[in-house]
């Protein structure tokens, strides 16, 4: 049993994670919507590492399909990594509730629907690991992206509870909180170079920390301290700020 299930596989971080795990000898399931578009990428991993790669169709916001999706995986994965992330458009979401729902359903409800199912299986097997990529945006709501941030905050709290529940069954749960990452999602944003990680950096961090069974990973590491400071700012001050 050597498969890792990567959910939200089309994101840049997911692709880097897939390369990192395959480099370290794991086989890979890539799950996402219109997954056949990743055919060339799956081939890339096979050529690089002679590992098995399988593409699985999954719509993270189609909750009722998740049970069947997981049951259909013949060889169950050793671990699951969710890289699902939908930043959405904050301004649009303020006016249009359907955009708000898109953001919540992708980042929160969808991941949780799937993780509930996988958690039961791993708990029964008393084996496995679950990694959820959340965000530092979930640490404190800001006007520029609080829809996204609040969904990620929910995910962070969920993962913390899940970790607590599965501790007894030796199933490891890790929360990943990336700061700035240079990806398609952030293309066009002017990110400070020293605080910005590449997807490859994030993937290496995730692999190393997961192997060490770390609970919470900030990547880059400096974000732990940046967020510590941001969280210390009193609300009467924070509400006036634009950060």
């Amino acid at each position: 049993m050597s498969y890792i299930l990567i959910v939200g596989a089309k994101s840049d971080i997911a692709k880097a994670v897939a390369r990192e795990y395959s480099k370290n000898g794991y086989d890979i399931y890539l799950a996402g919507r219109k997954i056949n578009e990743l055919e060339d990428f799956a081939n890339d991993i096979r050529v690089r590492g002679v590992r098995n790669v399988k593409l699985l169709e999954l719509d993270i916001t189609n909750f009722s399909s998740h049970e069947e999706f997981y049951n259909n995986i013949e060889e169950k994965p050793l671990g699951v990594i969710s890289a699902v992330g939908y930043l959405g458009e904050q301004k649009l979401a303020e006016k249009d509730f359907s955009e708000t729902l898109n953001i919540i359903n992708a980042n929160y409800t969808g991941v949780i629907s799937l993780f509930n199912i996988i958690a039961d299986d791993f708990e029964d097997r008393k084996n496995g690991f679950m990694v959820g990529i959340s965000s530092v945006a979930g640490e404190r709501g800001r006007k520029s992206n609080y829809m996204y941030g609040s969904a990620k905050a929910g995910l962070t709290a969920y993962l913390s509870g899940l970790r607590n529940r599965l501790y007894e069954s030796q199933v490891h749960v890790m929360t990943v909180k990336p700061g700035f990452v240079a990806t398609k999602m952030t293309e066009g944003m002017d990110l400070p170079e020293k605080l910005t990680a590449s997807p490859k950096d994030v993937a290496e961090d995730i692999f190393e920390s997961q192997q060490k069974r770390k609970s919470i990973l900030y990547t880059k590491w400096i974000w732990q301290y940046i967020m510590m400071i941001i969280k210390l700012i009193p609300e009467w001050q924070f509400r006036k700020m634009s950060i």
Partner: protein
Amino acid sequence: MSLMSWGLYPKKDNQVFKFKNYQEIKEIIQNNNSLISYGNGRSYGDSALSKNIVSVKSHDYFIDFDEVNGILHLASGAMLSDVLNSFVPRGWFLKITAGTKLITVGGAIASDIHGKNHHIEGCFSECIKEFNIMVENGDILTCSKDKNIELFRATCGGMGLTGVILDAKIYLKKINSSTILQTTIKTKNLKETFDAFEEYSYLPYSVAWIDCLAKGKDIGKCLLMAGDFKNDGKLDYKSKNGLSIPFTFPSFALNNWSVRAFNWLYYAKSPQGISKQSVGIDTFFYPLDAIGHWNRIYGNGGFTQYQFILPKETSYKGLEEILQTISDSGKGSFLAVLKLYGKANENYLSFPIEGYSLALDFKIEDGLFNLLDILDKIVVKYKGRIYLTKDVRVSKDIFEQGYPQIDKFREFREKNNMVEKFSSFQSKRVGI
């Protein structure tokens, strides 16, 4: 966002275009002029800088590997380091590699790079079965030594001035060990250095580090490192992520005294005469890659590498004169790398010719370009040439004297409407 080259000089604004598929590259080419491809940004000067840049690095898929013939098909943004990570443990190595593995395959073709085995295996173009390139009208052409031969010769070493290289099939080389048996020879002067190069030229890999602050009779003293892969069947390879220079040093950090100290330490730590060591791939081939962002030690003003080659007949006299000139100037070079090269190939702008090449790193500061102008004249006097991949300042006049096939390259570019479409700051300066 503006991109810089490895030398952190010049700092000029540019617009960066990314693409997801070939249709998008075609649109970028159709809608813009003065385009140049940019891979991992390891060329030193302004050869990959222009007003408009096509960023190729994320176009990095591996496509196929033919295990029987050792042919790897990969996209042009894939890096040599990716190839090593995947293939060294399976018993394959790059047939040709530069002194850094942090370059893309497309960049390796455009610079027609060479390595420590040039005297035996030649340039990167020798390991290419074929490649695909998108040219000025958006067509994709396949090039090899027997197909679209002119385009092949213009593109290998053509500094990205013929189009956007898309993918390549390259031959890998079988190895039965990831360890190299290295012989280190410490020489006392230039004569001994030349003799050592000849004596050890039977070994596939060789390079020398010269102490370029040596004076008088010590001029040309060096550490020559030559070697070959062992045959012990052990293929472990774990790429090293060593320390990284986290910020740009203040520009006074690197001065004549620190260079002197470094050179002295480097030279002194090595045993007298001849010694043998077993070293890993990264230590032998890519010593500087272990230090991330080492370009930052030269400070915010940046640095350049001056690399030239002289024909074998004039190498001794020419190098003696150049080393003497540098020593007299008192400007230190951290790195001074000397190497004996094999025969030239037929590509229009490939750098290597049979003879000796010296590469020197200099911090960019007042008076440096004057010194390099003086060195240029000596290089030309001895019928040598300058390496475009490292260059940021050579004049058109000096450059063209070194490259007898330059007119073929210029004509080819003109005939195929490439001049407006693809250019770099460097190509405009040297008129190619």
